[in-house]
Each structure stands twice: as structure tokens, then as C-alpha cells.
């Protein structure tokens, strides 16, 4: 960062310590692993939604196989958004957020790393579980692969969008429902292209999948700024 000769001594010191962002990722993953519930709860909720849907639409195998990708996507959407309200709240309550703000690391990057940690803990297990749940809905192997790929590409965008809602509702005690109300309309594009990539026979896989990847990239590029701005204003 600095080109001054005096800074060279510092450089050695910097290299011996971990970068702040890596330390944050390790910390979040460690907390997730120790508490445990975070990882399994999302998948269990996902399973519950997949289980409940056939009771609503009937046990017709053909119908379930046809709407299976949509069911998996709705379940992933809800499982992602409902687990997000604590993303920044825990840090805001115990004072860690204040220290994030006082770090030299930009808050935007901290937001991205928090989202990455959360996605690894909750989004990735959903993606990994989706082929198994897809089998329960009678999906073909090709459809299973498409659903899994589309969830892999799309769930990061959902986590990032949800992070904006989590940052906006960080100071509210019961912000979970409001988060969903705020973010569900905004996640319509991801849902449309995700489901289309997952299982639309007409349009094929490539076009919607590429658009889905574009949406995720756009979310990576834009939402951290909104979430960080909201976090800066939430303190007062």
C-alpha cells in the first residue's frame, strides 16, 4: 500500500500476520462449525419445504417431476432468506460491528466476506443437498444436474441480496419477516432465470444460466455497497 522506505519494516510485520479478510472468514466459519445448528438447520428447513409441497399439490409423480425444479428453487429461496436476519445482527449486538467500522479494511469487503462465509455455511449445503431432494421429487438425472448447477450459480446472488435486507434491518429486534418482505420482490429476476435454467424444456439451459451468472456477478459488484452504507447508518 505504501511505497515509503520506512514502510518496508512494516511490510515484514504485515506478512507475518493473517490478512483481516481471511481472519474474518476463518472466524465466521469457525463460529458456524462450533455452533453447528446453523449448517444443519438450513438443510432441514429445505427438506421440510420439499416434504410439505407434495401434500399441497398431490402425490402425482409426473406433476412433481415437472414442477420439481421450481419447488427446489422456492425452497432454496426461503431457506436462504429466512436464515439471513442474524448475518450482521449478532455482530451489531456484541460490538464487533463497531470494530469492523474502525478497521482499515473497507466495510464493503467485510460485507462480501461475511456473505461468503454465510453462503459456505448455508448456501453450499443446500446446493449439495438439492440432488438428493430432487430424486425425491422424481427428477431425471439431467434435470438434477441442471437444478444443482443453477442453484450453485444463483444462491450467492440470493445471499448477497439478503445481506442488503439484513443490513437494513440490523437494528430491529424482529427483522426477519421485514427482511423477507423487502428482499423477495427484488429476488424475482434470480428466481425467474434460476428456475428457467433448472428445468425449462423450451428455452434450454445455456441462455438463462448465463443470465443467472450475470445477475450473480452484478450482485457481487453492487450489493456490498448498499449493505455497507446501510450498516454505517444503522449505528446511530
Amino acid at each position, binding site marked *: 500500500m505504501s511505497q515509503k522506505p520506512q514502510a518496508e519494516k512494516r511490510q515484514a510485520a504485515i506478512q507475518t500476520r493473517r490478512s483481516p479478510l481471511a481472519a474474518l472468514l476463518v472466524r465466521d466459519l469457525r463460529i458456524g462449525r462450533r455452533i453447528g445448528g446453523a449448517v444443519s438447520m438450513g438443510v432441514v428447513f429445505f427438506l421440510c419445504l420439499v416434504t410439505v409441497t407434495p401434500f399441497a399439490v398431490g402425490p402425482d409423480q409426473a406433476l412433481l417431476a415437472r414442477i420439481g425444479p421450481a419447488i427446489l428453487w422456492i425452497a432454496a429461496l426461503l431457506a436462504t432468506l429466512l436464515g439471513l436476519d442474524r448475518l450482521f445482527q449478532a455482530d451489531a449486538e456484541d460490538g464487533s460491528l463497531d470494530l469492523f467500522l474502525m478497521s482499515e479494511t473497507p466495510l464493503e469487503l467485510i460485507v462480501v466476506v461475511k456473505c461468503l462465509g454465510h453462503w459456505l455455511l448455508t448456501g453450499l449445503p443446500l446446493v449439495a443437498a438439492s440432488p438428493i431432494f430432487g430424486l425425491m421429487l422424481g427428477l431425471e438425472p439431467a434435470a438434477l444436474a441442471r437444478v444443482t448447477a443453477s442453484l450453485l450459480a444463483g444462491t450467492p446472488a440470493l445471499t448477497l441480496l439478503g445481506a*442488503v435486507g439484513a443490513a*437494513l434491518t440490523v*437494528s*430491529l429486534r424482529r427483522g426477519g419477516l*421485514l427482511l423477507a*418482505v*423487502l428482499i*423477495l*420482490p*427484488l429476488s*424475482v*429476476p434470480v428466481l*425467474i*432465470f434460476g428456475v*428457467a435454467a433448472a428445468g*425449462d424444456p*423450451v*428455452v434450454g439451459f445455456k441462455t438463462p444460466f448465463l*443470465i443467472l451468472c450475470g*445477475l450473480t456477478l*452484478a450482485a457481487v459488484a*453492487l*450489493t456490498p455497497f*448498499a449493505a455497507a*452504507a*446501510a450498516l454505517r*447508518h*444503522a449505528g*446511530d
Partner: protein
Amino acid sequence: MQNYANPTHFLRLVRVLLPVTAGLTTGLLAVGLYLALFVAPADYQQGETVRIMYLHVPSAWMAMFVYLVMTSAAIGTLVFRHPLADVAQKAAAPLGAAFTFLCLTTGSLWGKPEWGTWWVWDARLTSVLVLFLIYLGIIALWQVIEDPGKAARLVAIFTLVGAVNVPIIKFSVDWWHTLHQPASVFRMGGPTIAASMLWPLLIMAVGFTTLFLTLHMLAMRNEILRRRLRRLSMLAADGAAPLGVVAEPAE
């Protein structure tokens, strides 16, 4: 512009402008309604139902226009920290939601005779429905955050996120719609429209716009008074409401 940052100046401006816009609105809507209901011809395809268009299209226009107003107010809040910007933003949200609701219900009433069902997942209606949900989210966010200054900044951020998202939603809903309903459905309005229909439509649209401006000014005035009341109540609760405070304009 900075001059009107002072709410007292703004309230004075409202007193001057209000009769003008209110009168303009009444006139425009009266003429527009007359033209729409009695002068404009019935459509050869849709019959009398086409007259719903004179409500539906202006309210769809307002749904977008109000969001545009809120987006500029959000920029005013976040970038310029203009004290009236968050008042404008808060006052606009329920009005935008009302116009959007009107757009949806008139669309539904138009759809029943035309399409045979009360609701069709038509691309335009669906986009407007998502916009309606965003309005409701904004109103909910205003309601749950107690401190108006903080609420204003958070709502402004959400409004901007929504503003970036609305075109993407529009694009994806259009894409989704062509995917699922390739058959051509008759759309309201359209590029070619007879002058006898265009004039009532334009007049109604302008009338709706001035109606919004009038209501927006009234709602902003209410919001300024509400904040003044809040401040005075807080002073009274502190046991420190000196005589002069009441005469002092709100900040």
C-alpha cells in the same frame, strides 16, 4: 433551491402553490373524465371496456413517476443531505402505493371481460405487482424504524437498490412472459392510437400528475408538522419547553 431547505419557506411556498395545483387538477380531471367517458369512441374490438384504459395507463405512469420522485429524493437524502428530501420521500411512498394499487385493480377489471379472468400473469401487470410489493416494503421500513433521520437514510438506500432492480425485474418478467405465453395477447394501449383516444389519455395523465403533486405537497406539509410535533413533545417530556420554542419553526 437551498432556500426551500428551510421548512418554513417551504410551507409558505405550499400556501402559494396549493390553490394553483388543486385548481389545475380539478380542471384537468373534469375535462379528462368528460372526454374519456363521453367523447372518446368505444373501441371496435374492446367496446366500452377501453375506457378503463384512461385510468389504467395514467396510474401505471404515476406508479413509475412516483418511484422516480422517490429515487431523486433518496439521492437528495444520501448525497446532498437536503433536509426536505427525506420528507418528500416519506410523503411520496403511500401515494405511489395507492396509484400502483389503482393500476392493478383497473388492470384486473379490464382483464375480466377481455381475458375472462380477474388476474392474468401478463408481463406488465406482473411487473407492476412487483413494484407494488417494493412500495409496501418501503412503507413497512418507514413504519418500523422510530428515528426519522435514520429511517430516511435506510429507506433511501433501499429505494436506490430498488431503482437499480426495477429495470432488471421488468426485463426478466418480460423474458419470462414471452417464454410461457408466446401467443399474442391484446395489449392495452399500443403504439398506434387514434387522436380521439390519445387526447383524453394525455389529459388524464397530466391530471393525475398534478393530482400527485398536490397530494404530495399536502403530505409533505403533514410530515413537517409531524416532525415539529415530535420535537416539541420530546422537549415537553424533557420538562424543558420554554415559551419561545413553540413559535420557532421546525427544523
